[in-house]
């Protein structure tokens, strides 16, 4: 049978195509029935043995008939794998406020959808007495399942088994799901809870990390990858999550750092707690490494389900479309009064976003990092879109290093997965000052510029108020191939604000106030841009939702191809 040499998932497809029941489990050797074929994979892409109860149907291979003893051995192994590190360690895990690897998968996936791979995997390490420390499954539970009916691949590190430490076999199991996910096109969700490299396995452990990194990079932009940090993740272990699209953390129980507090103390004499060094607060507010933080494993996993609901399965799938009772042409008169007429006054751009999208629902990414820009997934007319919006409520919505990087990464994420981008612009410019210049606002700001310029997904831009200077260009302007560019009547598209401009243009003028008025009536409005075709139209704020949805329909088969190249050279 040809299934022998192709990966397990493809084998499953082949089997079901022949009329076997689709829930036929690849790795579960149950009481055989004549029509059921069960494949047991012992290692990735290696020898696959087919077991059948009815040898007469399979002439090519000699039958292996499981005897009672064999069934018992299999059951025993399976039970051992399920038990992980044993009751005592499970209790310790719970006492720390953490759930076990399997409990987490139960919460993440639809009921009864999990199909486990490599349940029988065991390490082959014999150094330092490791041969006596055998836990079936080798500290990680892997497989596939569904979230609201949609396929995902998962791995979940088991802190109760060898502290979730990563050895060769453990890494191999993770690599297998990554490979399969890339092959079939489905997201990968990693639940990280690991003490780090398995020191007893030496360089094999390091090799394992690198194998995973390589696959994370290959999967990047092909299938969505999400990392949930649900315990420690230190040293080499941090880089796999760092390569994925999103990192969620659990407050008080998860940490990410390259070197732990002990090493920090030894090397720099700095006293710092795990929480202060790499807790959820640090990474979601300060470093920007993680994108969301939650109060419990349960909440983090529920949010991961919601997040997956927004994403296409891969870069070759369409964005998912959900039913909605929110009318596509719904006008929202509140938008007509939302932007304060006094252009120095702030307003919450999130109110604009929720009024435009379906059901007022958005999934914000990095809400606490660089809050002067808002990036979020949402739906319009049931289709997933990405929203990038300057937030006037925080530092007037200025573009600085962190907000540029945050938005750039999100734009590229959307572009990679075919998610249309809606950009709401109210930006006074780039942040001035030595701090920003010396930290490299030029190269960081260029990332956002690059990301927008490169993106070929539908790009719709609405200028709600200010669009000043270089920041106007950057924020998905017409010149960066914006498909539909609009301004509200409150739009002000100019090189700079009136005060600054008057200081330059009318340096010698005595009547600054009059000059300012002249500048405002000439430039602080949407006409100069609209006259030149840089705006397609000036729209009534209340009609924004209807207009964007219409445009998204028009743009749904948009085709745009960048020049062929190995890859561009984004200013990293």
């Amino acid at each position, binding site marked *: 049978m040809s299934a022998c040499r192709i990966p397990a998932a493809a084998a499953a497809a082949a089997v079901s195509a022949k009329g076997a029941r689709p829930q036929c489990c690849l790795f579960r050797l149950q009481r055989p029935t004549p029509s059921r074929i069960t494949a047991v994979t012992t290692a990735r892409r290696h020898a696959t043995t087919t077991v059948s109860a009815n040898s007469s149907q399979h002439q090519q291979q000699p039958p292996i008939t499981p005897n009672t003893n064999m069934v018992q051995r299999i059951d025993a192994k399976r039970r051992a794998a399920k038990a992980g590190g044993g009751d005592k360690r499970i209790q310790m895990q719970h006492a720390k406020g953490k759930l076990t690897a399997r409990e987490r998968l139960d*919460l993440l996936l639809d009921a009864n*959808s999990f199909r486990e791979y490599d349940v029988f995997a065991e390490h082959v390490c014999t150094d330092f007495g490791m041969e006596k420390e055998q836990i079936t499954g080798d500290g990680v539970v892997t497989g596939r399942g569904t979230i609201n009916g949609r396929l995902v691949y998962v791995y979940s590190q088991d802190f109760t088994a060898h502290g979730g430490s990563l050895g060769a076999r453990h890494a191999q199991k993770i690599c297998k799901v990554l490979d399969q996910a890339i092959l079939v096109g489905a997201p990968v969700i990693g639940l990280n809870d690991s003490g780090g490299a398995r020191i007893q396995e030496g360089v094999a452990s390091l090799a394992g990390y690198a194998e995973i990194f390589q696959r994370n990079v290959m999967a990047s932009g092909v299938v969505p990858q999400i990392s949930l940090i649900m315990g420690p993740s230190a040293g080499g272990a941090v880089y796999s999550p760092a390569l994925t699209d999103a990192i969620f953390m659990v407050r008080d129980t998860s940490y990410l750092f390259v070197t732990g507090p002990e090493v920090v103390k030894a090397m720099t004499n700095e006293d710092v707690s795990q929480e202060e060094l790499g807790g959820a607060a640090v990474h979601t507010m300060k470093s920007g490494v993680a994108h969301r933080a939650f109060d419990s494993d349960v909440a983090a996993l529920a949010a991961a389900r919601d997040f997956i609901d927004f994403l296409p399965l891969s870069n070759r*799938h369409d964005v998912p479309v*959900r039913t909605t009772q929110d009318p596509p042409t719904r006008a929202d008169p*509140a938008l007509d*009064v939302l932007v304060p*007429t006094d252009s120095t006054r702030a307003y919450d751009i999130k109110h604009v976003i929720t009024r435009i999208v379906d059901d007022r629902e958005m999934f914000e990414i990095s809400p606490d990092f660089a809050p002067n820009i808002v990036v979020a997934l949402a739906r319009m007319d049931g289709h997933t879109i990405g929203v990038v919006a300057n937030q006037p409520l925080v530092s007037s919505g200025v573009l600085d290093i962190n907000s540029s990087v945050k938005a750039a990464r999100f734009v590229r994420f959307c572009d990679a997965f075919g998610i249309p981008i809606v950009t709401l612009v109210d930006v006074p410019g780039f942040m001035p000052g030595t701090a920003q210049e010396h930290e490299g606002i030029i190269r960081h700001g260029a990332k956002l510029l690059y990301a927008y310029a490169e993106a070929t997904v539908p790009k719709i831009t609405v200028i709600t108020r200010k669009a000043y200077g270089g920041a106007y260009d950057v924020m998905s302007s017409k010149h960066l191939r914006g498909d539909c560019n609009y301004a509200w009547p409150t739009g002000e598209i100019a090189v700079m604000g009136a005060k600054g401009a008057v200081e330059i243009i009318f340096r010698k003028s005595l009547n600054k106030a009059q000059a300012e008025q002249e500048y405002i009536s000439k430039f602080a409005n949407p006409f100069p841009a609209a006259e030149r075709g840089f705006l397609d139209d000036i729209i009534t704020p209340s009609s924004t939702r209807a207009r964007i949805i219409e445009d998204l329909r028009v743009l749904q088969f948009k085709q745009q191809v960048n020049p062929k190249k190995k890859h561009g050279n984004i200013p990293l």
Partner: protein
Amino acid sequence: MGIKTVAIYSDADVSALHVRMADEAVHVGPPASTKSYLNIPAIVSAIERTGAQAVHPGYGFLSENSEFVRSLNAIGCAFVGPGEAAIAAMGDKIRSKVIAEDAGVRVIPGWKGVVRDASHAVEIANSIGYPVMLKASAGGGGKGMRIAWNDRETRDAFRVSSSEALSSFGDDRMLVEKFVESPRHIEIQLLGDKHGNVVYLPERECSIQRRNQKVIEEAPSPHLLPATRAAMGAQAVALARSVGYYSAGTCEFLVDPRQNFYFLEMNTRLQVEHPVTETVSGLDLVEQMIRVAAGQRLAFSQSDVSQPRGWAFESRVYGEDPYNGLPCIGTLDRYVEPPAPARCDSGIVEGGEISVHYDPLICKLVTSGETREEALEGMVTALDAFVIKGVTHNIPLLREVFARPRFVSGSLSTAFLSEEFPSGFTGHILTPEERMDLIATAAVLYALRDTRKRVWVRGGGTLGEITPVSQWDVVIGVAGVDNEVRVEKRAASWSASWSVDGQTVGVEVEELEWVAETPVVRATIRAAANGPLRRVTFQYLGAEGLGYTMIYHGTKYAVLVLTPLQHRLLQYTLPKRGVDPTRVVLSPMPGVVVGVSVRAGDTVRVGDELAVVEAMKMQNVIRAERDGVVRSVRVAVGSIVAGDDVLVEYEHS
């Protein structure tokens, strides 16, 4: 009436409703009312520019300002209100009492003159006996008004009220009078023309007050006997005649349980609560005011309007925390007024702002009926469907008052709120039946949302077919009690069942009306086998974290919604490590710090004043809630604070 209108507005009201509804609108200045709505020259110039022939002053700002009337007279523009002399006579609370006494109106014992200082206030208080009320001579609307029960409170009240009076009215003169216990606040609406005719309309009862500000009004009063009504009306008319009063005005009285009434003051303007009188009199008071201003005669006589027709309630929906009474501001992220027949008088639309500049009144909600019961039921239904999100509001309190047996029986007094909620309003307590309604409805919403989540129009990449589900198990937690609920979808209804104290309870939910993810949920519920079917309204304010925010009986509930598995595994979550709230004193609302009473190192005791935060022109004294030593004071006089900003930090104890 076919009259073209011109609205005036400040910077803060550029997109307000009144501006959009008027034929023309004129800008009169920055947000601060002293520079806009109280700015007589700016308003006069607006009149001259637009050629307006008359001005209706509304019921705040310049409505009782005789100087404004003089300014209008000077440019030949009519003031839709009483004459300058009447305003001046009645506007001064000290003078008005003397005039009232002379006109044969019964008044409250008190000091008929300006109080010199705090010590003088204490002296007067002791001479007339506690409790006493201190109030601003120029005041109104409860601002600058306080009750004192002893010397210390009198001193405190004098200090705070007089400074509030100064900032609100530019006049810090205070008066002291006897405080009538267990009184009802009942007022007589007057209408007079320029030809000497004055009539009284059916009374309003405005006893439901907090901090002397009216919250709920009704007309007529469930307390007054016809004879009392006639006597009060006659005295009010006599007073009006004695000052040559015309246009609309109101005499406020306190009425004790034995139908004794005492004149408080006369408001020489249209009152906020005038809609209840309009409803039971059938008159449009603003129209009448305009007719009078135009010199027309009243087209009816006293006997036409003496008797109330039906019953009406008004709820003042404020931007205010119902639990501590502090004003709240913000943008109305959601604002959907209840449907007719409820009457909503408001100047705000969704997306608008309740700002620090003006009174935080959001809407006056008026319902009516043939009987008090009917009007009350209409009010409850309207409050349940009133959607407000973005600004904390007092609907929870309003809704609860209307549900209180004492209110339903009509046994009111101005102390109603403090007596019914002795330790402050803490939210509605669900009855077992109401709890069942909420649990069942939350469970049904879960089933509907779950169904929607599993149906993909496209891009599902689904493995196999999605099997339709008609039964769900879900854990619904309300107020700390979790219930494992089984929900089943029937042909046209839902059933939910769970166990309470070992007994299975079943709830039928029928005729469910809910547009997915929108706030208003209506259903007909049968909470007990063969029990009555009840039409109820919930609000669903969205799914956040592991549950829904829902409103029932006016009060907001964080309803936990979990799968049984989530519920079982959530038990292992440890409490979060957060900031110790007892170590810091937070500002209860956004505002300006106008006083700081402690310094780092001071030892404070419970009840000591720490700071004073002014918001919405109200000064709020922040007191120590526990003993301790002040580690640091994070604010200074003039600091602008947001809600929950740290004011004072205690030393570690």
